[in-house]
C-alpha cells in the first residue's frame, strides 16, 4: 500500500488532526469564558480578589509553567525524532515529557495541600471557588494527557508497533493543549488581581 505524507497545509489536516483541533478550541472557549467570568466577578469583589490572590505562591505558579513548557518542548522533540524514525530517542524524550507532567502534578499537589491546611478551600470565597474549579479541571486534563502518553509509550515500545505518527501527533496536540490552557490560567489567577 502506498502511503502519502499528510499535507498539513490542507485545511482538513491540521497537525494532530481536525477532530483534536475541534476539541482544543472547545476547551479553549470553555476555559476562556470561565476566566472572563472570573475577571467580571473580580470587579464586584476587587478587595477580596486582591487579598485572596496574595495567598497564592507566584514562585510555584512560575515553576509549574516552566515544567509544562519544558515538557511540551520535549514532546515536540519526541515527535521530531519519531518522524526521523529514531524510536529510541523519541521514547527517551517522551519519558522526559511525562516526567515534566509528573513534576507539575507533584508541585500542584503540594500547593493544594498548603491551601487546604490554611482553610482556603473551594467554599472560602468567590476567588477560591474559581481557583479550585479551574485549576482542578486543568489538573484532570493533565492526568488524562499523562494516561494518553503512557499508552503511546507502551505502543511505541512494542516490537511490532501499530502506533502511527498520526497517533503520536494527536497525543502531542492534546498534551500541548494542557500547556495552552495553563498559559491562560497562570497570568489571570496568579498575577492579575
Amino acid at each position, binding site marked *: 500500500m502506498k502511503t502519502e505524507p499528510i499535507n498539513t497545509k490542507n485545511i482538513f489536516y491540521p497537525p494532530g488532526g481536525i477532530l483534536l483541533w475541534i476539541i482544543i478550541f472547545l476547551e479553549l472557549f470553555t476555559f476562556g469564558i470561565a476566566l472572563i467570568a472570573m*475577571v467580571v466577578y473580580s470587579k464586584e469583589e476587587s478587595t477580596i480578589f486582591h487579598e485572596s490572590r496574595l495567598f497564592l505562591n507566584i514562585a510555584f505558579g512560575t515553576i509549574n509553567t516552566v515544567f509544562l513548557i519544558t515538557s511540551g518542548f520535549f514532546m515536540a522533540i519526541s515527535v521530531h525524532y519519531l518522524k526521523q524514525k529514531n524510536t529510541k530517542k523519541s521514547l527517551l524524550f517522551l519519558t522526559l515529557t511525562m516526567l515534566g507532567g509528573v513534576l507539575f502534578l507533584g508541585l500542584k499537589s503540594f500547593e493544594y495541600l498548603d491551601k487546604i491546611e490554611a482553610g482556603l478551600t473551594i467554599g472560602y470565597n468567590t476567588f477560591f471557588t474559581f481557583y479550585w474549579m479551574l485549576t482542578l479541571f486543568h489538573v484532570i486534563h493533565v492526568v488524562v494527557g499523562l494516561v494518553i502518553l503512557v499508552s503511546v509509550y507502551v505502543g511505541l515500545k512494542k516490537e511490532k508497533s501499530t502506533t502511527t505518527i498520526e497517533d503520536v501527533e494527536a497525543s502531542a496536540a492534546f498534551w500541548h493543549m494542557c500547556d495552552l490552557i495553563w*498559559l491562560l490560567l497562570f497570568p489571570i489567577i496568579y498575577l492579575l488581581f
Partner: protein
Amino acid sequence: MNSRIIFVWILLVLLTITVGVISSFSLSYAAVAILGLSALKFIGVAFYFMELKKAHIFWKAAILIYVFLFSIITLIYLN
C-alpha cells in the same frame, strides 16, 4: 534537531520569568504587559510546539483571533 525550537523554548522560559517579575512591581501597565507576554507565549507554543506554523491559514488565524479577543476582553473588564 531544529535549533529554532530550542530558541523558542528558551524564549518561553525567559518570558515566564519576566512575567513573574513584572507582576511583583506595581506598574501602571503591568496588566497589559502580563497579558501581552502571556499571549506571546501562547502563540509560541501553538505555532512551534504544535507545528501550527505548517498548518492552513484558517487554523493560524483562528488561534490568533482567539488569543487576541481573549486578551482584549480580559483587559476591558479589568479596567
